[in-house]
């Protein structure tokens, strides 16, 4: 189990939150997702055997949000 923190551009609509939450949690291997609306961050726990930070970053990018930086713990 690894933890990924993505810093996004400023989130301004609460529905973005729902979208990202749904978009990332529907990825294979993702155990839990938390979108911090005010901090504009996405925290995801995932199974390293199934997915990786690049795929998850791509999932967020595909939804139309740019990822500024990522941090893997």
């Amino acid at each position, binding site marked *: 189990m690894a933890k990924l923190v993505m810093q996004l551009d400023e989130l301004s609509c*609460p529905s973005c939150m729902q979208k990202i939450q749904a978009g990332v949690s529907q990825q294979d291997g993702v155990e839990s997702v938390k979108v911090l609306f005010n901090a504009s961050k996405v925290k995801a726990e995932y199974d390293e055997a199934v997915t990786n930070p690049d795929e998850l970053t791509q999932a967020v990018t595909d939804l*139309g949000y740019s990822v500024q930086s990522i941090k893997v713990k």
Partner: protein
Amino acid sequence: MKFQRWLQSVKNQIALTVGGLIAVAYGWYWLGGAVIVMQGLLLVASMVGVAPILMQAYQALKVKVVSIDLLVTIAVLGALIIGEFNESAIVTFLFLFGSYLEQRTLKKTRESIRALSEMAPQTAQVLAADGTTTTVGVDDVEIDDQVLVKTGAQVPVDGQVVQGSAYVNEASITGEAQLVKKIVGDAVYSGAIVDNGTLTVTATQVGDDTTFAQIIELVEEAQDSKSPAEKFIDRFATYYTPAVLVLALAIGLITRDFKLAITILVLGCPGALVIGAPVSIVAGIGNGAKHGVLIKGGEVVNAMAGIDTMVFDKTGTLTKGDTAVAHVQFYTAAEQATLAVTTAVEAQSDHPLATAIVQYARERGVTDLPTIERIETLKGLGVQAEVAGQTIRIGRAKMMTEAEVAGQTIRIGRAKMMTEAGIRLTGAQIAAITASQTAGQSTVLVAVDQQVVLLIGIADTVKPEAKAALTRLKKAGVKHLVMLTGDNDQTAAAIAKAVGITEYHANLLPAEKVEFIKTYQASGQKVAFIGDGINDSPSLALADIGIAMGSGTDVAIETSDIVLMQSTLSELVYADYLTKATARNTVQNIVIAVGTVGLLLLGLMLGWVQMASGMFVHEISILVVIFNAMRLIRFKVR
């Protein structure tokens, strides 16, 4: 995919373009131009404006979310179909321009935490063995590395000063812009700024484990942790949007009034309802963080605002906690040896009384401490240790009765502990204890075997702001103030009188403090517990609100709901006033949001509200709740 992101990035320009086109269209018409040209311009404006909204709706739909964007997209396309080009153009403009304003104003409500996180250090000067330094990112510093911090630079790690001295500003941690002198042996925190001097620091915590990083993470999490009311609104909004879609469809099918159906889509946008409460919470928590009051979430704000009973621990909460030895009396000739063995055991404890004894011994030049073979903390009773084959006990009265008296046993503790262990106190000793306690001192006894060898009186001073702060809390509606302490009755009475508390209970174990809190809760009181030590964690956890003093232990800070970074009671007053103001603000915003929806429905039934005017009212209401929340950013306790 690239096109989508490009579309997002130029959203603001699109809003501007749409606005411009609408202005030109109406200008043309008023100047007597042909209607067909105006209609054409409005059609173009609608098409341009709806593109980014449509894209967002599509992306959401892909992950099975019915978003506001979808409602607006359908409404706009519907209006285009029935030829209401002016309505569709104005709706897209208002929606895009509104979200631009939301973004701008929301940024303001998030200012406090942003300012805080921008204070985070970025790089560190790591010192090599040969005295040269390399600049690395703060995340690349390892524990036990030595870092050099010069005047004007930020301390990049949590650590201990091993060389040099300096005045540092710890405002990023405590909220207090006061210079603190740091010398060899002192702890420094990441984020502190060296105002004057140079320090060499050995890292004990780095990167995300530093206190500063944890404060930021805590505040970020707190701003997004939702109160039950918000969770309800979230759940509501999840079903609300699809429900509006279904409702509009049903009305359209039944009444055959296509225009009414698409108007409902626009009016049904949740708008201020979704953003109203969170925006107040963000501003309130951000304000607290800037003033040294860490509030761990929206739930905490509401619970704290409703507190009517405050239970205080004494030491370190009402008193400074930086206790000092005020009186020492030996009942043995081997004074230095007794003090050394006492110090060796007490050095292992972070109890305020122990710290005072160690400090005293250090001042007296006691350095040659015996080695401790085994040490065990007995909660609320004291410490039991083996030193050079002897069993040493330090703590409260009851501990002695539980311990085996074998060979050379050394006991350090309160008077009651000695009598229960069967140790006879002489008349002179009893008199000395009474005298020490009446003076408001905490009395610690040290015993070897059945012999009391040392009496130490330790005094603690009341925090200067305590009395005034407690008076303000009473005025602000906190009805019941209580002090609980493990200390003796005389000391407790002296402190309670000094701070103006009438109800106090002394000689308590941590478990007994918990019982008091349970009793208050059972009688329907909303209880906040304010404390600092490890021993208080059960009380902090059980109380409706646990408030930890920032100088306390990590455990206490983790278990608590609110942390007062500077450990002052003025911050407690601030927390009380701020949470009340934030809770009021949240209620105002919910009333505004619900009121808007009600008004729009009424307007629709009376036929006053059209698509464009409905969207206008929505956007206004969103801005009103954001502006209302922004008042909290400037909130201050006079």
